[in-house]
């Protein structure tokens, strides 16, 4: 039997790794969409002129930013079934990722909103816009342009954090790597390949975020 060349194990099992790769992408997209919506609502809640909502927003953001994601994942997967609410492994990962990153999205959105000049809010209100209408049509569209780079970085962070889903046996990229490793014992090749697959996603995304950031900085100077 001829000796295997380096990387053969990866080539042979590429379909399995790619299966995990797609689940990683899918999980990232879905949970980032949820966290975007949830985070925007909480970010707005943190600055509305209504104290109970503001307090709720602050507690949410501080709690989730100061506790590990893995706890939330275990909470969904081990904890909630005890209360009669059962999520599949994928759903547990989806929701815990969304809820955790929503706290960071909220902070980014809040910073974006607060960077919009106060005069805009005052002008819209004096034109007869309600508070919510002002947010919806005047403030948020402008804030989102400013917030795109930090949101992009958050998406990358979320994508990397989907690897935690392997701990509850979601068949994403790292999980498939671990399966292959236990089957073949070719640790270096397999996890290096897994790393390269993550880089295939995160490096282009990071480059794109940098590009947008520079464009926006230039546009900001021009204005």
């Amino acid at each position, binding site marked *: 039997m001829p000796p295997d060349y380096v990387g053969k194990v990866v080539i042979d099992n590429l379909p399995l790794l790619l299966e995990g790769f797609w689940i990683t992408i899918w999980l990232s997209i879905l949970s980032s969409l949820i966290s975007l919506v949830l985070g925007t609502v909480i970010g707005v809640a943190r600055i509305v002129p209504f104290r109970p909502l503001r307090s709720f927003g602050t507690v949410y953001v501080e*709690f989730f930013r*100061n506790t590990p994601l893995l706890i939330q994942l275990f909470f969904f997967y081990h904890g909630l079934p005890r*209360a009669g609410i059962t999520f599949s492994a994928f759903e547990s990962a989806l929701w815990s990722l969304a809820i955790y990153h929503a706290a960071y999205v909220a902070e980014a959105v809040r910073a974006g909103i607060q960077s919009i000049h106060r005069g805009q809010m005052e002008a819209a209100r004096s034109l007869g816009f309600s508070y919510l209408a002002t947010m919806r049509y005047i403030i948020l569209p402008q804030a989102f342009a400013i917030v795109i780079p930090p949101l992009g970085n958050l998406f990358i962070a979320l994508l990397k954090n*989907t690897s935690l889903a392997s*701990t509850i046996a979601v068949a994403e990229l790292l999980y498939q790597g671990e399966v292959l*490793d236990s089957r073949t014992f070719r*640790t270096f090749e397999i996890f290096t390949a897994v790393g390269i697959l993550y*880089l295939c996603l995160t490096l282009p995304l990071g480059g794109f975020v940098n590009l947008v950031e520079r464009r926006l900085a230039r546009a900001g100077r021009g204005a």
Partner: protein
Amino acid sequence: MGNWAVFGDTRTWIFLGNGLLVTMQVALAAIILSMVFGVLLALARLARFPLIHYPAVAYIEGIRALPVFLLIIYVFFASARLGAQLPVEWAVVLALTVYTSAVNAEIVRAGVLSIEKGQVEAARSLGLTYTQMMRYVVLPQALQRMIPPLVSQFITLLKDTSLGTVIGLLELLRRGEIIYRGTYQGRVNNNPIESLLVVSIIYFILCYSLSGLSLRLERKLAVG
């Protein structure tokens, strides 16, 4: 309401307290090591000499783009395959150091680049060497600007020590898991909600006081 009985037992708190100690030791070791390597990497990236500059760029950009959890798994399994199984504490410290050094390097670099060029020119024209200029002029000022992002990175690191749970590091979360899964002290608690809540409150207090410390430190340095 709920199954809290196990938390009425002092032994449970000693058990968790020892886990907290492991969490803090691992985090502290990784923080110190990643600061040292972070500064070195930042200086390497700032250097003009291509054989120093480009490897530093590759390391920083490559490592930052990887999941820290992959690094933990990699270090743990790879060291086992090499027949030099690292103790789990050191596997976690090593992986967190590898990752956080790259992040810290970027924070340090941004801090250094935020110092106006005039200061560098002034220091050089006063006859300071590059090392002296970095040591006495640039780094002390840059440090103040680096504190908020560094502390938030340390909080991330502290939270990431919980990933050690997966490879059997007996830190805080792992011990919480032991309490709610299977038998603990001869009884079955099966109380994941209660246990995870207790553990997350301990993490919260730890991380939240760290961010408070950052504010105080900033103010202190701003005066000095």
